[in-house]
């Protein structure tokens, strides 16, 4: 750290060595200043993001088990292994199912909460805080509460206690994959954790909708409720909605914490990152295959992102600047 930030913190130091005049010239130089500002970040970016990716491409062509400095070149074996490994292929399917669950439900719940809070006349700050508070919890803490108490498979789990009042037998929420109750556990935990965050986004957007729109609609005879929601609120929220969906997708790509903590030693319900974790850092310590998996995943995500960008015109505005 210190090596990368020092140039920034003690930037004017060269003044001592160079004549004052040169320093003044340098200080005004755009090129010098640009690099002064950017180089700590850029160096870090290259060392800690680009180099590892390059290294993992290298590793992915080697038999690298229990070592990160392998010598046995095996060509594309790791790639064929990963691509034919049912677990890795499944993990991509798991991600798809997960995204299909979590993106629409979080979108709907957070929008719903925002609408509710927005219409409240009193105790608004209180309710906003209540819905927002779970954002403070980590996925690990939530997993703990969900696994050990709410959805514990035995009689003293809260859900099983409540079901017991209605005479329903204990359900092993996480231990058994069919019926796949584990999705309920995972999705409810994530909903609780992140709905409040997106609610804030929607609230901000709702408050930016000009009141005149609603007044005009009322004059046109639109009934408050579904009609105004459908024809005014929703279209006005389009930008926010798109952003929320994108953010949710990105978050779903990176799902790891709750899957890792809730599902122990399963062959199901493993998104790609969990699968890679077990391949590379689990008992097999297969850094070659793990790196190949990371490369495949990276390539996939880049393709999807570029594709998304094409469709949504995302990033095009940036280039013109």
């Amino acid at each position, binding site marked *: *750290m210190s090596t990368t930030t020092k140039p*920034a913190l003690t930037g004017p130091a060269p003044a001592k060595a160079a004549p004052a005049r040169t320093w003044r010239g340098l*200080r*005004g130089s755009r090129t010098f*200043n640009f690099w*002064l*500002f950017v180089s700590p*970040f*850029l160096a*870090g*970016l290259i*060392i*800690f*993001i*680009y180099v*590892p*990716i390059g*290294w993992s491409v290298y590793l992915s062509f080697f038999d690298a088990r229990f070592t990160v*400095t392998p010598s046995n070149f095996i060509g594309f074996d790791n790639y064929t292994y990963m691509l034919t490994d049912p677990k890795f292929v499944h993990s991509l399917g798991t991600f798809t199912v997960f995204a299909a669950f979590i993106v629409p439900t979080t979108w709907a719940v957070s929008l719903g*909460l925002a609408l509710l809070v927005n*219409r*409240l006349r009193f105790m608004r700050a209180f309710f906003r805080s209540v*819905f*927002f*508070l779970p*954002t*403070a*919890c*980590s*996925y*690990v*803490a939530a*997993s*703990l509460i969900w696994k*050990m108490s*709410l959805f514990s498979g035995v009689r*003293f789990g*809260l859900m099983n206690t409540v079901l017991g009042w209605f005479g329903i037998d204990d359900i092993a929420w996480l231990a058994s994959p069919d019926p796949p109750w584990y999705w309920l556990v995972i999705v409810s935990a994530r909903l*609780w954790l992140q709905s409040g*965050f997106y609610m*804030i*986004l929607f609230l901000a957007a*709702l408050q930016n909708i000009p*009141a005149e729109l609603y007044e005009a609609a009322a004059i046109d005879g639109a009934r*408050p409720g579904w009609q105004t929601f459908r024809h005014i609120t929703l279209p006005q929220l389009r930008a926010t909605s798109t952003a929320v969906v994108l953010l949710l997708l990105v978050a779903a*790509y*990176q799902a790891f*914490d709750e899957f*890792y*903590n809730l599902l122990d030693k399963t062959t199901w319900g493993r998104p790609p*990152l969990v699968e*890679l974790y077990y391949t590379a*850092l689990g008992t097999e310590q297969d*850094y070659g295959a793990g*790196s190949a998996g*990371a490369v495949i995943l*990276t390539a996939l995500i*880049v393709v999807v992102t570029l594709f998304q960008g094409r469709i949504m015109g995302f990033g095009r505005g*940036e280039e013109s*600047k």
Partner: protein
Amino acid sequence: MTTKRRGGVMGNTGLCIATGVAAFLFLVPFYVLLRNALSTDARITGEHWEFFPTHLQWGNIGELFDDPSVPFARSLLNSLVVAVSMTAGILLVCSLAGYALARIPYRHANKIFYVVLGTLMVPTSVTFVPSFVLVSSLGWVDSYRGLIIPGLFSGFTCFLFRQYFLGFPKELEEAARVDGLGYWGAYWRVVVPNSLNFFAAIATITFINGWNAFLWPLVIGQDPNSWTVQVALSSYITNQTVVFHQIFMAAAISILPLLFVFLFLQRWLVQGIAQTGIKG
């Protein structure tokens, strides 16, 4: 302005009920957390659900910190160090770069920006295997260096700063320039002091993310002494022996610092989310 709009013609009762039910559901996990943290194990695993312990077991707190086999105090300290250093580091490094990309004209600035944008496409957590390989060969496993430094170079935060600085009023900088300040001086004396709200917003969010991070600390923290509080919690979930009240007390304490952040910094947080979330 917002309350005016709907007039509250219909569904007021429905609205109240819906909000109440939702709030109740959102609070249940907190209730369970507190109840278990302050109960005895016998009560938690008893035949019937006890709604709230009749005798609050405040001694559970002391018990947690006194247990030598659980390095919990150490993990709290680690989390604090990591979250604070990451916040400070990210603010410094990313804001400087973001400013240069937005405001310092330079021939190759666009190319550099593409290098940054390139990392936006790949969430950093996807590359945790290669990052671990790098960090372990630097000998940084089990160290603060390994926990903190690789996370400082967030393309996304740099991007947010750039977007923010693009909208920063030019006149202020020009005034500073007239006063004879270079880019560096103008940045620290004019730009930063006038952007404290934005910095505070990013800081709050970065701190929360640093405190709650799990995957990277899990990978790096092999030795229990270098565990952050999230890794410690996770180890309790899969522990050999389960002491319920201890586990839940640990979870409750791990959330506490962030609850303070939420109570006292909610303004910046909400503002930060509204600003940065949309821009993402």
